[in-house]
């Protein structure tokens, strides 16, 4: 039998033991004696979620292409196993070799959302790696963070040796080369960190110092005296200019158990032309870059063949903006549809093409239409620069209803800048208008009753967006907005057809604290973890009271980070990162938002956001690169 880190008695008593086995289809196995570098790639959440993440699949494939490197995977052990590991003092292990994480050269942790920060500490703790980077010794793995939350790494600065800012395809190999050089030369951990600090996109938090004023606001942030000339003043985001000439897996790992994404994922483009002002992904992944159609066709076929998956999903922030979408989708339907392959198209604008495709690939009776107007009124949609108009929504819905659909999902946000009661009421009115549109159909053409599900989340201002300066609502304000909307929905004619879903305000508050947090939060994060906070995004394990205690004990006022408006002049904790989009552009966008002015998308006109320096095709065409 394959060697497993966990004894049988444990595997037979925990939920879903397959989470911890490794050896899935397409998992990569190497002889550890034949490699120089062992990299453990971690998604700090439960297996089924982590396995659904495309970024890790890309890096896993890319790292394992190197002969000198063996990259393995790691996910958060679920609560039941967490208890057992602590009790029996079993060190956390990587899936492929089942070897302890502590034996690895690198522990890479992807930071996809703020609510996984306590799980980062769980991983370090169970692996037996000191929490603080400063306390780590030569034999400990180099702990490196990446992903969208690395664009404001400061709340986690104490716990990471390195952060990689941007897309992994560009600088990682250089980093690994340096590591090997240092290893061969007998250099120390610190020698390597110094070498790494010289690379583009790499941030070594220990080499910087932050000072805060009496008001708690960041007063200065700079390279420590001893590391001047070694560490960079500004860390430049890494971007792949040509997405078709780079790594993309042909053999993604296929889990034994059903993952959240139980399908092949084809990333058709990166970045987004839209420029919605609340959206961090839309800003930090700029500029938009499309993958070549032939490249996508080839990869789609190769991945379906190597995985045996029955579904392929196109992934991007806004699929409808991919210029050759029709060709791609019809190719996939023609080529694979007859083989029983299902095609899923999230983030598609509802129009005649979308309805045609959806009618071909989905069971209309079971599927629903999705719109994300994000705000109820046109005024507020202009403020947030969401191009979707009521007319487009109602036309799309009408055509869909004529085509046999009767379910609609709507996504909105509460608490965006300048929001008034009229804007909130408009959510209820729009939901009702869509239902009315349905009942305009002659009775014999209707497919039963219409079902509308309106969901609201709470707006969290994020770094590197035009709203990075704004005041976030308090929990009470959020709940008041929610109650108001709930009341307004009950006043609508079609209230019985409208279902209302909402998010929890307390979790949103916590997300708000860490999204725009600074280094002062590190101690509170550790306290919260030590009080037992973990898997915060799982409501059954979210303990807001423990968090409040942790903040209190560490002298942190959460409202300082959430419900405080920043001035234009304020030094923001993430200002040292150059994400392409400039602070000046973001401020201009903020002013335009307040004036209710929309900004055209990148295909219509260049707005000079700053991401043109990456020389992407669209920027070159528009003459700003």
């Amino acid at each position, binding site marked *: 039998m394959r060697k497993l880190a966990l004894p*049988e008695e444990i595997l037979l008593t925990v939920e879903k033991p*397959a989470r911890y086995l490794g050896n899935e289809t397409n998992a990569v196995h190497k002889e550890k004696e034949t490699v120089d570098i062992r990299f453990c790639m971690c998604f700090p959440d439960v297996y089924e979620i982590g396995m659904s993440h495309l970024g890790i699949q890309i890096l896993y494939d890319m790292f394992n292409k190197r002969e000198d490197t063996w990259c393995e995977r790691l996910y958060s052990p679920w609560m039941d196993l967490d208890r057992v590991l602590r009790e029996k003092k079993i060190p956390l292990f990587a899936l492929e070799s089942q070897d302890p994480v502590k034996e690895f050269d690198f522990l890479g942790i992807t930071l996809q959302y703020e609510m996984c920060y306590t799980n980062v500490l769980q991983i370090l703790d169970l692996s037996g790696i000191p929490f603080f980077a400063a306390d780590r010794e030569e034999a400990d793995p180099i702990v490196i963070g990446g992903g969208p939350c690395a664009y404001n790494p400061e709340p986690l600065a104490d716990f990471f040796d390195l952060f990689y800012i941007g897309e992994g395809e560009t600088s990682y190999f250089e980093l690994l080369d340096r590591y090997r050089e240092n290893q061969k030369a007998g250099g120390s951990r610190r020698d390597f960190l110094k070498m790494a600090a010289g690379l583009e996109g790499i941030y070594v938090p220990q080499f910087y110092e932050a000072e805060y004023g009496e008001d708690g606001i960041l007063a200065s942030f700079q390279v420590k005296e001893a590391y001047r000339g070694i560490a960079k003043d500004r860390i430049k985001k890494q971007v792949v200019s040509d997405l078709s000439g780079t790594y993309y897996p042909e053999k993604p790992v*296929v889990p034994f*158990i059903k993952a959240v994404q139980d399908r092949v994922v084809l990333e058709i483009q990166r970045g987004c032309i839209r420029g919605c002002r609340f959206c961090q992904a839309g800003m930090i992944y700029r500029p938009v870059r499309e993958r070549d159609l032939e490249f996508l066709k080839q990869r789609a076929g190769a991945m379906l063949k190597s995985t*045996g998956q*029955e579904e392929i999903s196109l992934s991007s922030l806004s699929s409808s903006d991919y210029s050759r979408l029709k060709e791609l989708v019809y190719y996939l339907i023609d080529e694979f549809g007859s083989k*029983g392959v*299902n095609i899923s198209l999230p983030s598609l604008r509802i129009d005649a093409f979308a309805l045609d495709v959806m009618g071909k690939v989905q*069971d209309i009776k079971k599927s629903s239409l999705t719109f994300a107007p994000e705000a109820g009124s046109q005024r507020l949609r202009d403020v947030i620069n969401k191009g979707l108009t009521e007319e487009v929504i109602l036309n799309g819905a009408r055509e869909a209803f004529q085509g046999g659909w009767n379910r609609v999902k709507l996504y909105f946000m509460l608490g965006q800048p300048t929001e008034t009661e009229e804007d909130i009421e408009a959510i209820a009115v729009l939901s009702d208008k869509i239902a009315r549109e349905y009942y305009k159909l002659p009775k014999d053409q209707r497919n039963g009753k219409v079902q509308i599900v309106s969901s609201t989340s709470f707006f969290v201002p994020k770094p590197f967006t035009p709203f990075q300066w704004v005041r976030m609502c308090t929990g009470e304000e959020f709940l008041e907005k929610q109650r108001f909307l709930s009341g307004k929905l009950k006043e609508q004619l079609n209230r019985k057809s409208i279902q209302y879903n909402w998010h929890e305000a307390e979790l949103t508050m916590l997300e708000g604290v860490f999204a725009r947090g600074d280094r002062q939060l590190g101690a509170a994060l550790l306290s919260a973890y030590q009080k037992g906070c973990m898997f915060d995004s799982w409501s059954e394990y979210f303990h807001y009271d423990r968090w409040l205690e942790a903040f209190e004990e560490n002298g942190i006022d959460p409202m300082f980070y959430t419900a405080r408006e920043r001035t234009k002049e304020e030094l923001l904790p993430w200002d040292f990162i150059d994400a392409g989009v400039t602070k000046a552009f973001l401020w201009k966008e903020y002013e335009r938002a307040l004036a209710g002015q929309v900004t055209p998308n990148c295909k219509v006109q260049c707005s000079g956001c700053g991401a043109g320096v990456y020389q992407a095709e669209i920027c070159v065409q528009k003459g700003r690169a």
Partner: protein
Amino acid sequence: MKLRIKFSKTGTMKFISHLDLMRYVQKALRRAEIPVAYSQGFSPHQLLSFAAPLGLGDTSEGDYLDLTVHSMGEPEEFLEKINREMNEEIRLLSVSVQEDKTKPSMALVAAADYCVNLREGHGIAIESFPEFMGQKEIVVRKKSKRTEQEVDIRPMIYSWGMDADGFRRQQEEAEEPLCPVQKVYEEGLTPICYLRLSCGSSSNVKPDLVMEAFCKWLGTEYEPLAFQIHRLETYADLSGGEGKKKFVPLKDQCVP
């Protein structure tokens, strides 16, 4: 054409649940590009079904699945093609072509043979097992999803033995030699008894239930983790429900 395939599930694959195993095989068939027949309708699925679910943690060298394909080619090549797409702990062992009118194995399955193994570090007074089996009835509390009732499982234990030879002597009808169990096994296991138990949708006795009853009879605590259950073979009953049971392995033609 309807195929019945015998397979084994050993090693770490015992931690893969029945549903996940089904998904695993479905994907392997697609990777191997087997011309599997699909059901009709809007979301077609492979015509694939399993005879009798194996409990999580149990291993087997005698499980079956039914598969409908458009063509098979050479049986050995066919099996090899699929085996290449799966890890070595799941092996397709043999394939037989079934008549179109044959019932699915799920409906045919009537009994299964098991070897019960004791894990290292555990003990049990197995020498008393013959005495336990000598009882006229063995009443256990059987829990279903809703109800809990007392059932006499003795009639559902068709035969038993303390070793493979003894077990076989009880089965005149057994044509297939029993496989040497330890060969496919992990270390640290001692076979302690062999059981042929009722299996299937109408009546089903898991070996665990027998061992639990045995422990209760002994007056010792039942530790589920002490035993490793290994399925050896799965049978249909060709007696037609009357008289003596006539068990044949599912891989044989089972047109009743």
